[in-house]
């Protein structure tokens, strides 16, 4: 791709390198959008995200909800005639949006962070405390109480976490991969 604007070129190159995907090959056949389950709930189709990246539209892409509502089901990539794994592009864009501080779907990121904190602490995710903490931090306290109580009664939410032996090693992996 060629650009007059250096910033646009930089953004395009960064997304291509970070995702490892041949995004310059997209010719807008929209096969990805046809199979995407998230299109009705997000602001851009997957092919629009790719087009915006091709045009160096950093702000619009990194501020979009689509990159977060993408559930990484990988239908788009499996059907792309040009071998673009769009879910990998979406993941690269999420990381870039976090770095730029432009995360549109804040609760989605809050959930990811709460989940990973639990893994970092115990080596496994402790669902009961992770969900409780997420609800507390997001302010969404009351929803799903019926399901929570039902699961507690059925013994499906053990209150104490299992701590793995190799917790030191897991902390090490987190530290070595930290941005």
């Amino acid at each position, binding site marked *: 791709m060629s650009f007059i604007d250096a910033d646009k070129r930089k953004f395009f190159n960064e997304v291509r390198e970070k995702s490892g995907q041949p995004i310059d090959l997209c010719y807008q056949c929209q096969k990805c959008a046809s199979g995407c389950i998230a299109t009705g709930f997000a602001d851009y189709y997957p092919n629009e995200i790719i087009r915006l990246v091709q045009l160096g539209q950093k702000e619009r892409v990194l501020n979009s909800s689509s990159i977060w509502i993408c559930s990484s*089901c990988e239908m788009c990539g499996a059907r792309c005639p040009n071998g673009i794994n769009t879910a990998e592009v979406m993941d690269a864009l999420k990381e870039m949006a976090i770095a730029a501080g432009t995360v549109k779907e804040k609760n989605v990121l809050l959930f990811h962070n709460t*989940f990973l904190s639990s*893994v970092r602490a115990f080596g496994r995710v402790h669902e009961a405390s992770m969900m409780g903490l997420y609800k507390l931090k997001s302010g969404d306290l009351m929803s799903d109480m019926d399901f929570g109580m039902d699961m507690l009664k059925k*013994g*499906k939410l053990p209150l104490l976490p299992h701590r793995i032996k190799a917790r030191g090693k897991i902390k090490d992996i987190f530290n070595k991969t930290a941005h």
Partner: protein
Amino acid sequence: MRLSYYPGCSLKATAKEYDMSARDACKGLGIELVELDDWVCCGATCAHSTNHMLSIALPSQNVALAQRAGMDLAIPCAACYSRVKKADYVLRNDDVMRQKVEDIVDFKYNASVNVHSLVEVVGQLGEKAIAEKVQKPLKGLKVVCYYGCLMVRPPQVTCFDNTEHPMFLDNIVKALGAEPIQWSYKTECCGASLSLTSKDVVHGMVGRIIDAAKEVEAMAIVTACPLCQSNLEMRQAKGTDLPAFYFTELIGLALGLPATKKWSNLHLVNPNPLLQSLSLAD
């Protein structure tokens, strides 16, 4: 057959009936599962959405443990399978990443262990071998098999029979005497990773799947993923009462295993009335 077994975090909590039924069903089919000692969380969607290197390094620790145990790895959870399989794929095919991951996780990858979904392990026994073990055929039970996204995609990593129209779950269900109905939502995603954060979105995604299942007059959905199972039962419209079974629960029922009632009682949508109406449960 003896395999390392990686249950994953959900099977120790919200999906414990999957863990119990997987162990019992495999035992009944002559597959010995040995739980991987000190396994670690695969990182799930949360790791790959926020930190690519972590998302490969974390499951690689499980590959390292499986390598030490010296047996192929069977994973019942589709999400865990997807992440561990992806890590193994990267370690196997990307020299630059392999070196980095080996440094981070402090092990030497030798490609000696294969990562399998538990469905794949059971499916490879063959319909005939499964059918021979059946004591109580699941006669009259009409189901749709729901593969979801993570088990079959991306195709170059998972290598299942057919990404768009997989049949391995249907074949198992058929061998058990039930009737798998063909439908077009086999591999659509249910949005489980957004189930806590974006409920409206997920109600929409689950609604479409449930409607499609009802359209072909399915009595239940069969899954091989703890996130799909709980999401489909939790986020279907109130009053729908369409149960979602783990495929291992159906194996347990057909093999006449004693603990099946215990598993059914743990569901959010009670499957007992359906099973009783077909004389498949007391």
